[in-house]
């Protein structure tokens, strides 16, 4: 387990949800953990929506200072510098979608690279139309890496059809995830699934307790 874990990916691929669940997992392993919501792109669904549940579990939450307020300013909190520089706790960074969202990561990358104890996990849902196959998913990954100034180190398969997902839907995407791993030369780190489903037959199954949705 690296000290800093970044979740990047196409928007709507499930990064926030994974970041929340990953931070909770760190806490359940007894690690001091903090989660930073770095999504400056999407004002509707964000990891900070789960702030209360996270804080109850002992995860420190760093939210955007002006999110869900009257100030329409996509500013990042200075506390994120503390998180990457102080090295005192495990850090989970929920990065915004696509290359646009990943751009915000750039200013923190020198600190992350210098410490060199990080993972950049590329989250992919093969049921999303613009990442429906390994080649398209790789293209989005490269765009994100270029914008962020950091290379991905692993792949998380988060393929799902929302509330209609069956375990077989997830299993059907394993060949695509393997193909993406082969094309990119990166390991398939885990495969996420809704904890309410029976455990699918996939590499590295990782159960997700889903975030509550606003509507």
């Amino acid at each position, binding site marked *: 387990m690296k000290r800093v874990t970044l979740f990047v990916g196409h928007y709507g691929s499930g990064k926030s949800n994974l970041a929340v669940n990953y931070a909770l997992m760190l806490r359940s392993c007894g690690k001091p953990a903090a989660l930073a919501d770095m999504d400056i792109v999407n004002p509707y669904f964000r990891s900070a929506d789960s702030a209360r549940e996270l804080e109850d579990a002992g995860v420190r939450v760093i939210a955007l200072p002006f999110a869900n307020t009257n100030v329409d300013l996509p500013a990042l909190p200075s506390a994120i510098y503390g998180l990457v520089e102080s090295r005192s706790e495990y850090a989970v960074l929920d990065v915004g979608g696509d290359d646009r969202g990943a751009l915000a990561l750039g200013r923190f990358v020198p600190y992350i690279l210098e410490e060199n104890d990080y993972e950049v996990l590329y989250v992919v849902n093969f049921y999303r139309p*613009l990442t429906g196959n390994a080649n398209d998913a790789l293209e989005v990954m490269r765009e994100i890496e270029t914008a962020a100034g950091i290379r991905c180190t692993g792949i998380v398969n988060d393929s*799902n059809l929302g509330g*209609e997902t069956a375990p077989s839907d997830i299993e059907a995407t394993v060949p695509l995830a393997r193909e993406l791993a082969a094309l990119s030369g990166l390991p398939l780190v885990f495969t996420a699934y809704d904890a309410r489903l029976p455990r699918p037959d996939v590499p590295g199954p990782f159960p997700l307790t889903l975030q509550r*949705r606003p*509507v």
Partner: protein
Amino acid sequence: MGNKVLMKGNEAIAEAAIRSGCRHYLGYPITPQTELAAYMAKRMPKIGGVFLQAESEIAAINMVYGVAATGRRVMTSSSSPGISLKQEGISYIAGSDLPCLIVNVQRGGPGLGGIQPSQSDYFQATKGGGHGDYHLIVVAPSSVQEMAQLTGLAFDLAEKYRMPAMLLADGTVGQMMEPVELPDEKDVEFTEKDWAVTGTKMQRPHHIVNSLYLVPDELERKNFERFERYRRIQETEARYESFLMDDAEICVVAFGIAARVSKNAVLAARAEGLKVGMIRPITLWPFPSQALKEAADRVKGFVSVELSMGQMIEDIKLAISCRKPVELVNRAGGMIMSPDEVLAGIRKMNGGDNQ
């Protein structure tokens, strides 16, 4: 893997538009519809289509006017303040009898308002919006699946009746993700229209696209012709979903995201033994007036559920000639009512308390 994909409502509109043969998207970004433009920016160059981010909403709608004049399928999208900017162009397109699709993923207003979901552009969408006598065909999806279906329908109706169509969504349906079965790709081969401006090649008389008629009786004739067409649309194209209306004594009327909330309230009311049903307009213009008129013979009252200060309620009252009471359940400014709030409105209409 099956045929379904997981999409945001905004993306579903974009992909469905492409599959309906649209190869021209002209727009300007605004929350909460930006994913639509972003999707088009990625997809259009790969399929030989045009994505263009104009310098403003006003420029975008006038580019739509230009493409529409050639008879090609064309669209723009925005959210409430941006749609206000487009109104002059929309009036010109309506006055020139051209088809196109305008998508409004509504947010709270008036003014710059907010970025959370709203339905407060109902009047603007259904009563004209710009100057002059005209209507848009207005469809109102309440799921991501319907975002895709109604996009195709709106294009087809716009072309059939040579008039602009609007897909009136809200920030929630635009942003939420649901599994979708996308429509099949339509044959996009261009069929020559007998009115389109495509160059005469010196082989036919000029086609003229214009909304300026300085001779008043000619302009009057144009208006009469257009309204004769509107009358036919009102008679034949109104669409709605009827939910548990067979024995209903109270009729909830709601569209879009408000209808999803209301459906839960109707089921909760049924569980309490109240005979409640719902009519969900799918087309807001033409409004399903006939269905409501018939319901008014059977029910004791209506409950209009809207994310506005009460706009559709006026069309309900007109449709039923004010023969029955109509209760309003509403939130505004980006807030969404809970099923309990709708249930309270239903109980109140039933003659109970408002708890």
